[in-house]
Structures are given as structure tokens and as C-alpha cells.
């Protein structure tokens, strides 16, 4: 029956090509606009690690100044990051299946035999200092003085983290793998390269076992990451979360010996007992992100109890002067709290759906005219025994066919529209692959076209199936 309806529908569409084109165009326009806007919102809001996001938790503790809250206007919010002292203590817990403290830095990288880099000058313990938001330095413009290197050294975004990072966040590997926990303990000089960095340094070859120079030390390449572009850099929402993941990953435990300062935010209220890097590490400066994997509800409770016990014990030692305020926040809740989805995109998505509604209403008028003009023909069919439901279905199917054709065309145009937006984002924010139509968005577009077809067609189809055959037969 459906097939028969479809055949009749196609015939009817061909009979009035201009009207059909206008109707298809209407749905197409509505679907284009709503798909583009919904995709923009979805690109920020979607779950970056769907099957695990509820197990991964971001940890915060309120180690801030007893005299005043971290954010004066919102006194219940603990600092966004944790101190080095607390991270070291928390890492000792065996409750999480996996866990990692981490931070981002910018380190000089070259190939051995190239320009000798220097060791880090160390971070400063200055209160409330802020990130250097400039873009990564440009590559070579002129040859360096004297010892011209093969590749001019560049500062490269590097993440310092623990072995669990790669398994916890399901980082895909092209060659090799991440390091193991022993490498953490030994502060081994091993490095994981991103796809791009491997391309740049080794022309994309399997570089596992090769050596690169980071600052003044040699590092052995232990793994090369495959294409990995989470929609947002969800494991560090403290800054620039639209950026691609870092290009290098090295063990966190190299931070103290190499005196590597952070390239991210630091918030402090009390300096350490001594000046310099040592003092910074012992200070109350919050500058590290900390994630734990807690797969079950019981584990979460167990970990919460562990945190409470830890803070209580620290209170005895004179720290944590503020009320107990630990936060164990799953990925999506943390994204919401950090405002990953720009409010404007939600407003635009709502507006685009209303736009589609107006398009549908428009089609109702056109379809009504078209169907009623066909009343005599329908009268004959009714007289020959077609039931009302048959007529109704036939016309509704016709509407849906038009809607789906319009929807598919709209989807194709949205691809083009998003491509233009991506290009613009590449220029403005250096991120050219943010807006992608994935399976959910494709289904949404098709679903919306079916809905638009239904809204537009249900009344005209109902009207046409209600006509009195006798009236129209008389005219013939």
C-alpha cells in the first residue's frame, strides 16, 4: 500500500513541477537552517566520551583562603583546580580504577643534534597570574644565529600527566602505546606524540623508539596518537577548551626535576615557605586538574568518603580553613558548570526550530490548495471504493516524500554551510573541524523533515479525505 501511495505521490509531484519545487524548497530552507543551528549547539554540548562520561569525575577541594571565598559572588564554589600537595596525596588512593593529575605547558622541542634547548626557568608562585593566551610561535622565519639547526626549535603544547591518562580518556594509538605506571614512578624520559607532531618531526613514519629533545633532555618516543579530536578538550576545561589536544605528552613526575611551569591558569592566595620552584610546589596555589575513574555508584561514595577523611586530616594540620566542600563532578556536569555551550547557540537553535515551524505552516497553505484542486479526482476514487483512510494516507505520504526530499537537500546544503562556518572558526579560533554533522544530527534532520511534512500535510490530507464524492461526481 505504501509503495502504491508513493507511486501515486510521485505522479502527482510530476504533474505540478513548479508547486512541487516550491514545497521542496520550503522544507529544504527550514531544514538547512535548523540543521546548521542545531549542529552548532550540538558540537559544544555533545558527550565527548559517551560510554564513559558518567564514570570519569573531576575533583575539586576547597583549600582556599579561610578569610574569603574563591569567588566572592558565589561563596559555595571551590577553586577550579587543586594544589600540587593535594594532588600528590590524592594520587595515593587505590579507590579509583584509574586517575591522573595533569597540566598543560609549552616546552621547547627539537631533534637531537639541533639547537640545544635550556632547562626550565621554573614557574612563579605569583598569586592569580594568568595564562599567556598567545598563539604558538610561528615556525622559522629566518635562520637562527650561529648554530643553524635542522629544525628551528619551537615551543610545543605539552601535557604532563600520569600513565592512566591514555586508558582513562581512551586515546587511540597509531603506533606504540602510552607509558606504564612504572614509568611514572621512575620519571622516565618517554614521550607520546600527536599525529601532527609525528608528521612534522618524522614525516609520519613509525617513530616509536626514536629520540626527540625536550628542553635539555632526550626523550624516547613510546607512542604516536592516531587522529584524536574530541569536540572539546574536555579533560581540561579551565582554558581554551576548543583547542585540539596537546601535541606532546610526558610523565607528570618529570615536572619537579625539570622545573616545568604551567602554561595554564594559576590561582593562589598563599605563597610557599620558601622562594623559587620548591616554594611554588609547597604553596597553596591551585593549578592542576585531577581526574578519577569511578565506574560504580559505590566507588563514587567510597571516594567521597576518602576525600572527606583526607580534608579532615588536613584541617588538623592547619590547612583547609574553609567549610568542607569537595566536588566529585562527572564529565557532562563539569562541562555544564564551566559553560562549555555558549548561551547564544542555544538561543539560535530554538529560533531555528521556530523558523522550521513557519516554513511548515507555509506549506500547509500550498498543500491545501494543491489537494483541493484535485477534489474531483479524489471524488472518483472515493466513489470507486477508496476508503477515507486510504485517501488520507495517500496524501500524507505525498507530503512526507516532499518533506524528505527537501530534508535531504537541506542536509546537503547544511554540510556546505557548516564548512564555511568551520573555515571562519579556523581563522578566528584556529579550530577548523568543530562543526560536524554526525549520526545524531543526520537523524535529527531526517526526523525534523518528517515532522515538518506531517505538520504541513496532516490538515490538507484530512480535508481532502473528508470531501463528499457525490458533489464532485456531479460536476464531471
Amino acid at each position: 500500500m505504501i509503495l502504491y501511495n508513493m507511486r501515486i505521490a510521485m505522479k502527482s509531484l510530476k504533474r505540478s513541477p513548479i508547486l512541487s519545487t516550491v514545497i521542496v524548497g520550503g522544507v529544504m530552507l527550514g531544514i538547512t537552517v535548523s540543521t546548521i543551528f542545531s549542529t552548532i549547539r550540538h558540537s559544544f554540548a555533545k558527550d565527548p566520551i559517551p560510554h564513559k562520561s558518567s564514570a570519569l569525575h573531576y575533583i575539586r577541594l576547597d583549600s582556599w583562603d579561610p578569610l574569603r571565598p574563591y569567588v566572592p559572588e558565589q561563596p559555595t564554589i571551590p577553586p577550579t583546580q587543586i594544589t600540587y600537595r593535594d594532588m600528590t596525596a590524592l594520587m595515593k588512593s587505590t579507590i579509583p580504577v584509574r586517575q591522573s593529575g595533569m597540566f598543560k605547558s609549552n616546552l621547547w622541542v627539537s631533534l637531537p643534534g639541533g639547537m640545544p634547548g635550556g632547562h626550565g626557568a621554573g614557574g612563579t608562585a605569583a598569586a592569580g597570574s594568568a595564562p599567556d593566551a598567545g598563539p604558538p610561535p610561528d615556525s622559522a622565519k629566518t635562520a637562527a644565529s650561529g648554530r643553524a639547526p635542522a629544525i628551528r626549535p619551537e615551543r610545543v603544547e605539552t601535557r604532563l600527566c600520569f600513565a592512566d591518562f591514555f586508558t582513562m580518556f581512551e586515546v587511540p594509538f597509531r603506533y606504540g602505546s602510552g607509558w606504564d605506571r612504572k614509568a611514572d614512578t621512575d620519571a622516565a624520559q618517554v614521550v607520546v606524540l600527536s599525529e601532527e607532531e609525528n608528521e612534522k618531526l618524522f614525516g609520519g613514519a613509525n617513530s616509536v623508539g626514536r629520540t626527540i629533545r625536550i628542553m635539555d633532555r632526550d626523550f624516547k618516543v613510546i607512542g604516536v596518537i592516531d587522529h584524536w579530536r574530541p569536540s572539546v578538550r574536555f579533560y581540561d576545561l579551565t582554558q581554551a577548551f576548543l583547542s585540539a589536544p596537546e601535541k606532546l605528552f610526558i610523565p607528570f613526575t618529570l615536572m619537579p626535576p625539570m622545573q616545568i611551569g604551567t602554561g595554564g591558569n594559576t590561582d593562589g592566595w598563599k605563597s610557599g615557605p620558601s622562594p623559587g620552584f620548591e616554594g611554588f610546589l609547597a604553596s597553596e596555589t591551585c593549578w592542576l586538574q585531577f581526574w578519577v575513574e569511578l565506574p560504580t555508584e559505590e566507588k563514587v561514595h567510597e571516594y567521597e568518603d576518602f576525600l572527606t577523611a583526607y580534608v579532615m586530616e588536613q584541617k588538623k594540620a592547619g590547612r583547609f580553613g574553609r567549610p568542607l566542600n569537595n566536588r566529585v563532578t562527572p564529565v557532562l556536569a563539569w562541562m555544564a558548570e564551566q559553560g562549555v555551550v555558549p548561551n547564544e547557540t542555544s538561543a539560535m537553535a530554538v529560533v531555528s526550530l521556530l523558523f522550521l515551524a513557519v516554513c511548515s505552516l507555509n506549506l500547509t497553505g500550498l498543500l491545501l490548495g494543491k489537494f483541493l484542486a484535485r477534489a474531483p479526482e479524489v471524488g472518483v476514487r472515493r466513489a470507486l471504493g477508496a476508503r477515507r483512510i486510504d485517501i488520507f494516507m495517500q496524501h500524507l505520504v505525498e507530503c512526507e516524500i516532499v518533506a524528505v526530499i527537501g530534508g535531504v537537500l537541506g542536509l546537503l546544503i547544511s554540510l556546505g554551510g557548516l564548512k564555511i562556518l568551520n573555515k571562519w572558526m579556523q581563522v578566528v579560533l584556529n579550530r577548523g573541524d568543530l562543526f560536524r554533522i554526525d549520526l545524531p544530527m543526520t537523524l535529527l534532520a531526517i526526523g525534523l523533515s518528517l515532522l515538518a511534512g506531517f505538520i504541513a500535510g496532516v490538515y490538507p490530507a484530512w480535508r481532502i479525505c473528508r470531501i463528499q464524492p457525490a458533489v464532485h461526481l456531479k460536476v464531471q
Partner: protein
Amino acid sequence: MKESAAEGKGTPVMELGPILRSMKRSKVRFGLIVLEVALTLAVVANCITMIVDAKKQMAKTSGFDDDNILSVRSVPFDAAFKENGYLDNGLKQDIAAIRATPGVRAVTDTRFLPWQGGGSSTMLKAFGPKGEMLRTQIYAIDEGFLDTLGTHLVEGRNFTHEDVDRDTQRVRALADVNREKGPDGNPREKFLQDILITRAYARLLFGESPSYLGKLLEDTEGDQYRIIGVVDPFYNPYGWQIHDYAVFYAVYSRSFEGGEAFLVRTEPGRRAEVMQALDAKLLAVNGGRNVTLRPLAEVKNGYFTNQRAVEVLMSMIVVLLVLVTSLGIVGLTSFTVAERTRTIGTRRALGASKADILKHFLLENWLVTTMGLALGIVLTYALNMGLVSSVSTAKMSWLLPAGGVVLLWLAGLGATLVPALRAARISPAIATRNV
């Protein structure tokens, strides 16, 4: 066929009665226009609210000469830069080289970068037992800062070159020593530093006052800051609500890890030229580093990404929507005209003029549009409440729905005109056919 049932027989067309009666007979069709117009008004008015809001945000001025300022960042890799003396010499050479470049008006060594959506901040309070700690932006600057940004002193004096040299020495010496702590955990010996302050922050701390010069501030560790100059205007958007609050102290900043950062102000219109010259020049001064140059206008563009997207995309929606709705009205009216061809012919035969027919359709449509607009105003405010609660846009001014009403009236009339003119051209002879 109910839709096309003949209406009143030869009644005068300019009365509302027949129009309303004929509309009643095609309730659904006119209901559609009402709904469409209502939704269109709601969406258009709210889109324009968002566009206006975005424009307002983008029109906010920093008070600086944004269009002629360049950000220059230099990050060394040559190990020689690890030595402080080398760094200091390098800094002096760079400032001299930049200053000597044709087209450069002023240069300053500072890590402050307007429009990056942040910066550095700290908590300070008015000195004394009273008052609370209030957050402010804080930046190390040198004597060229005010000239480079193009902002002004409203009171007091700027740092001199000697001030910057002296304070740089003092602050660096302080960072290297282990300061002896008192019983409160803060350093026993307090440190006094001269600062410039923005007028907004001075007002916040000390209230309205004829002069803020010489007033003292203190930080969480008890160190003190003395105001020697008051700056206005200053605006740099920040994560916290401290856009207009800032204090500045005199220190040359440079390190191996952080490199150097400058702001350079060029003569109007010579930005591109200076940018090109500086790129080569700084690497010629010292090649053991990477240099990045960026116009401030570009940083500002990046900061307003969302607003620019709203502006462009929402404008497109408004245009498309008015177009779609107009086409919808054209379609529905055409259908009505086609359906009533015979009736119109009869009327013309009974003496109605072309103008009467035209008026009938225009009036009919005006009525429908107006009903739609009435419903639309309700929807507009409902949608606005929904959006305002989720988006931090400003509340809508009544001018917008009013403007939308006028726009849609015009669009409605325009859209009706084409089919209505066609209706007016229907010959009275039609009435005699096919009877």
C-alpha cells in the same frame, strides 16, 4: 466544496461584515496566516534583540587606540637567554629597535593584552582596619604604557624611566629572599610600592573623592601600594566583573620561559607596514628566539566571535523568515483569489470597481495580519522571557515589537498586493461563464 462556497450576493464590498463572514468560511486558511505572522513577529523581534545586544557589546570601547596597536611576543630558545643580564640587555635592545622603526609612535613592555578575555588579577583593599578585599586586574608596565594604549592620566603623574628601573630592582630582590614571617603568617616587614590606578577602581575602594593621590592600598599579605597617578579610560573584559578595575606597577618583565611581551602603537594606517618591518628587525637583533606579531584588532575579533556569529546568522534568519512568510501570504492569497474568481466576477458585473476588489483583499489581509501581530506580541514576550532566562541578553525594548509590527504590516500588504491586483483584473464576464 466548502472552501469555495459562494459568499454574499452582491453586497457592498467595503463593509467589514462580508469580509469577516468570508473569512469565517475559511477559518483554517486565515488561521494559518495568523499563526505564521505571530511566529514570525516573535522570532524576528527576538533575533533583532540579540543582534542589537551583540552590536552593543561590540561597540564597547576599551578606551585604547585598538586599531593601531600591535602585540609583539618574543620567546627565546637560545640558552644564552637564561642569564638575567643577557635578558635585560636583550630587552633594552628590543625596545630601542622597536622605537627606532619608522611608523612607531610608542612602545611598552607589558604582558597586558587587551581583549584577550582575561589577564592577571589580585585582591586588594583600602589600607586600614576597615574595608574588604576587592578583586582587580594588575599589570606590570613601564613608562611607555599610557602613550602606547592612548589612555590618559586624570590626576597625578606617570612612572618615569628611573622609577621603572628602581622598582624593577626592588621587586626582583624581594622575590629572591625568604621573607621572615610574623605570627599571622605574613611577612613581618612590609613592602611599599608606587602604583597607577584606574579611576573606577579608586572610586570603588575609596568612594567619590576629589583626589586619590597618596592613598594607600594593601594586599592579602599586608604589603602596601601608594597611588601616584589615576588613569581613565580603561576597559578590559575579564572573567570576573572587574573590567574597569586595574592597578599598574612599574617593572620590566622578561624571563627565559615567558620571554618578552610588548605593545606597539603605530601611526594611524601604518600598522601593516610596521608589522612587516618589526618581524625582520627583531630577529636581526637576536635570532635565538621566535617572534610573533598580532594586531590588537585581530585579538578583539577573536574575543567577539560569538557576537559576530550572532550578528551574521541572526540577520540571515530575519531576512529569510520575512521572505518565507511573505511568500506564504502570497501563496494563500493567490489561492483565495483563484477560488473566488467567479464571485469576484459576479461582483464586478454588479458594479463593484477594480479599486473595490483591491481594497477588499487588502483590508481582509490587513485584518488577518493584525490578528497575527496581536498574538505575535504575546508570543514575542513569552519567547523573550524564555531566551532571556537562558541567554544573558538584555530585555527587549518595546520599540522592537513595534518595529516588527510595522515591518510585517508592510510585508503583509506587499505580499497581498500581487494576487489582489490579479483579482482586480478579473473580468466581469467571468461571472457569466459556466453557470
